């Protein structure tokens, strides 16, 4: 199974080839992949419903404790089904939405890669494996937000999304490492089975905060919510898939996954329920300020993500059942609504809801789909969203702490959401007909099937709640709670407080919808306040980073070679000197036993070095440095290291050649340093030399480890079939190092080429204005 999932990466690599074969129908061909996986996952539903947990063990890097083990329980199966089912429809939809787009291939590659990463994230059992997939989703999300890379806004939003989620990813990594240390295991299922071990561990508070930072940034919780609406710069299929149904729920998934092991403490309940409730209200409130249909939906996604976090925070059995229900309901209606938004944008040429109206006769199917999905979003019976909202109200009412605050925020968010639903679902289709930039007509079937199926599911599950309730949701809620529970959903709960709250919010929401234009005008006065929100903090931070890096570049990397060398040498003196002089006593243990020829070679070395520093001609400096190099080669040969000697000789020869080539390009020799600077340089260089000499002499007397050279000599012939130990070390014992070295060498060569050729290119660029290269995907 792991290979089946990961084969998506291979499929992504072959997407360009498939495009050549299938042309415009590639989306359909590629959709077979998630569809097949979805069928497989559906096949697992009965077993998981019976309370089974499937563990598909597979080692990856056993020496690091990393495994590719997949665990399929209710929670991961629910997520896997959402990812694959919605993924199938999104791929089909994208075929219509991006029809004829020159970069469609790139879209397919990245979205497939995302799909696989997201599946890996929800299925992985290993902490580190999950983290790898987590970061992959951040990167693929970045590429997808910036899909229209010629657009400055898209690039900016992509970068913002990446910075926020990856910064959170760093915190998450720290949290996961602490989690692994605290629990002594790197497997999620083992950690969850530990009972109170983690909750009572000293590291609990720091690790929880780090994990929450990771989850909150990923799932756009207040105050990190601002990146999600900006991510709407992505094409609509991406928004529907990543930024409402799957990726932004990764943080929620993580919290739900860790709930059995970490949840239920004061800290957990306090942070999650308050942050969740705040996010929920912020999302709903900010939504009605916008007229862009995608932004409206994005903020309402923020609201939904807040709701999910809040429910996890409340943490009662009812709240967790509500969590699973709300999760499913939201993915269904929000996916459908986003695809409807894409259809509207595609067919009318505008994203502004106020510019649309009376479209129902022109696009009847879209209007129907939008209506069903919006009713589910609003939580109107008999749709599935209604059940989810009832459960949400019920669990808020039984919240242990901060009940009044949460209740107030939940109720306000609910009626604001109803207004949003009406704006998105009613406004474009009813009322008087408005002129749109493009003459609207019904969308092609490929774009309708996805939203239609999702909307029908919203309706179907609402009418037959036991279908979802007794099935997957029971298993999912059980996985979050950590012990088996029975979920029974129903439409009619009797006349109780949640129902009254629903009715009141419906009335208020509809009233707000009728006066929306007026309210929006009033809210515009708050704009200056909004401009100082968390996003301003992000901008200020990024500006600070630029200022600091600017400053340190000016100080440390000012482009003068002499400065770089001095910084490096001073760092060396600082670090080596510190540990040599303060931690070890420098001990000089050597005895003078030198031969005459050794003195000669050393003398040549010293002479070369001295001459190089005082000469005023570059050529003689090159020559004297060359003398040093050849003397070193001689030393190697004297101490019977022929390979090193030969290498040194050859390198020295080539260095001289390269220097000579460069020499002629330099300006005339000039003395730029003052006497004071020269004295400073002498001191720096002198102390570095003395220090290294001391280091070598001290190291001579220290024998901390058994030398490994004995092993290498003994095994060179029997194991490595070679008598030249130097070469055996290079290509066998230490082949990985050598591999790294040739890569470094290649990079250096590329660096030289880039530096010289790009400069030459500048001159050419001045002659003719460069044409923008067409992108060939």
């Amino acid at each position, binding site marked *: 199974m792991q290979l089946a999932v990961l084969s998506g990466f291979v499929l992504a690599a072959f997407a360009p080839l498939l495009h050549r074969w299938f042309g415009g129908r590639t989306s359909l061909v590629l959709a077979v992949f998630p569809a097949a996986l979805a069928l497989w996952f559906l096949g697992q539903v009965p077993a998981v419903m019976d309370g089974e947990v499937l563990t598909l063990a597979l080692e990856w890097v056993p020496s690091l404790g990393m495994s590719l083990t997949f665990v399929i329980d209710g929670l991961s199966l629910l997520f896997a089904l959402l990812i694959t089912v919605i993924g199938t429809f999104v791929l089909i939809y994208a075929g219509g939405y991006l029809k004829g787009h020159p970069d469609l291939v790139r879209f397919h590659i990245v979205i497939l890669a995302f799909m696989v990463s997201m599946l890996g994230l929800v299925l992985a059992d290993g902490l580190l494996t999950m983290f790898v997939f987590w970061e992959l989703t951040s990167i693929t999300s970045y590429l997808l937000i910036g899909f229209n890379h010629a657009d400055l806004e898209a690039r900016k939003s992509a970068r913002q999304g990446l910075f926020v989620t990856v910064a959170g990813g760093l915190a998450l990594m720290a949290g996961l490492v602490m989690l692994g240390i605290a629990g002594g295991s790197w497997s999620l299922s083992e950690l969850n089975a530990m009972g109170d071990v983690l909750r009572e561990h000293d590291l609990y508070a720091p690790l929880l905060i780090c994990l929450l930072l990771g989850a909150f940034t990923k799932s756009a919780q207040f105050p990190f919510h601002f990146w999600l609406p900006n991510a709407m710069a992505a094409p609509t299929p991406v928004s529907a898939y990543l930024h409402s149904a799957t990726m932004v729920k990764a943080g929620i998934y993580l919290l739900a996954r860790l709930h059995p092991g970490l949840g239920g403490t004061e800290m957990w309940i306090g942070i999650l329920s308050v942050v969740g409730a705040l996010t929920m209200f912020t999302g709903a409130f900010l939504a009605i300020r916008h007229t862009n249909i995608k932004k409206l939906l994005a903020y309402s996604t923020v609201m939904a993500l807040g709701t999910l976090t809040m429910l996890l925070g409340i943490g009662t059995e009812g709240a967790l059942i509500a969590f699973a229900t709300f999760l499913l309901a939201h993915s269904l209606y929000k996916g459908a609504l986003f695809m409807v938004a894409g259809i509207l944008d595609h067919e009318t040429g505008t994203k502004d809801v106020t510019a649309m109206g009376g479209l129902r006769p022109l696009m009847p199917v879209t209007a129907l789909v939008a209506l069903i999905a919006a009713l589910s979003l609003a939580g109107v019976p008999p749709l599935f969203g209604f059940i989810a909202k009832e459960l949400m109200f019920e669990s808020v009412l039984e919240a242990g702490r901060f009940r009044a605050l949460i209740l107030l925020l939940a109720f306000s968010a609910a009626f604001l959401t109803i207004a949003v639903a009406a704006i998105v679902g009613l406004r474009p289709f009813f009322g008087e007909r408005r002129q749109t930039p493009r003459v609207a007509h019904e969308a092609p079937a490929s774009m309708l099937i996805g939203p239609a199926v999702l909307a029908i599911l919203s309706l179907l599950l609402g009418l037959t709640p036991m279908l979802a309730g007794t099935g997957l949701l029971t298993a999912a809620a059980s996985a979050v709670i950590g012990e088996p529970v029975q979920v029974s959903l129903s439409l009619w709960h009797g006349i109780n407080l949640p129902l009254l709250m629903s009715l009141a919010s419906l009335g208020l929401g509809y009233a707000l919808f009728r006066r929306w234009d007026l309210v929006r005008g009033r809210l515009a006065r708050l704009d200056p306040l909004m401009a100082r929100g968390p996003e301003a903090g992000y901008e200020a931070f990024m500006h600070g980073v630029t200022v600091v890096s600017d400053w340190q570049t000016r100080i440390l990397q000012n482009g003068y070679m002499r400065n770089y060398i001095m910084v490096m040498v001073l760092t060396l003196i600082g670090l080596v000197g510190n540990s040599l002089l303060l931690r070890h006593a420098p001990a000089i243990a050597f005895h003078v036993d030198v031969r005459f020829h050794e003195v000669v070679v050393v003398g040549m070395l010293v002479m070369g070095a001295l001459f190089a520093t005082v000469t005023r001609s570059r050529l003689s400096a090159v020559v004297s440095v060359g003398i040093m190099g050849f003397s070193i080669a001689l030393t190697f040969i004297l101490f019977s290291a022929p390979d090193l000697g030969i290498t040194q000789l050859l390198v020295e020869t*080539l260095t001289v050649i390269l220097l000579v080539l460069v020499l002629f390009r330099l300006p005339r020799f000039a003395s730029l340093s003052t006497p004071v600077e020269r004295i400073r340089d002498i001191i720096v260089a002198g102390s570095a030399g003395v220090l290294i000499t001391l280091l070598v002499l001290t190291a001579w007397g220290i024998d901390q480890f058994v030398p490994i050279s004995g092993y290498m000599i003994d095994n060179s012939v029997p194991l490595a*079939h070679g008598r030249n130990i130097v070469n055996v070390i290079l*290509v066998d014992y230490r082949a990985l190092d*050598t*591999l790294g070295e040739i890569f470094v060498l290649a990079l250096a060569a590329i660096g030289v080429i880039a530096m010289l050729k790009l400069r030459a290119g500048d001159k050419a660029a001045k002659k003719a204005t460069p044409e923008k290269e067409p992108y060939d995907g």
Partner: protein
Amino acid sequence: MVKSGTLILHTAARILMPLQLLFSVFLLLRGHDEPGGGFIAGLVAAGAFTLYLFAFGVSATRDVLRMVDPRDLIGMGLLLGMISVFPAWFVDQPFLTAQWWEVPGIDFKASTPLIFDIGVYLAVLGSVLAMVMTLMEVDKDEP
């Protein structure tokens, strides 16, 4: 700045280059048992081409190299280096574990270290040549 050389340099380069290249291959192949190896051999080969460069200039050297761009040599070298990583995987050993195969008929043992060493040879040769040739070409562009 590097003008084509004198008659002596021309003649020497023409005779020495093939010899040096042969010598580099010799060093490469015997490297596992005697002083030599991919790195040294690559440097010797680079030296050979550099001598030719100094004698005849960039375009003549490109002619000698025919279709092969030094940059491609770097890529080939890295590729061979990576290729030698994997055979161990197929016999269920850790990556990079050396594999030895007897070639029937002749007294020669093929092995992943040899493939690796050839990779090193090409990468070194390509890198040095690319650097030297780029430096010389830029010179040529200057007025």
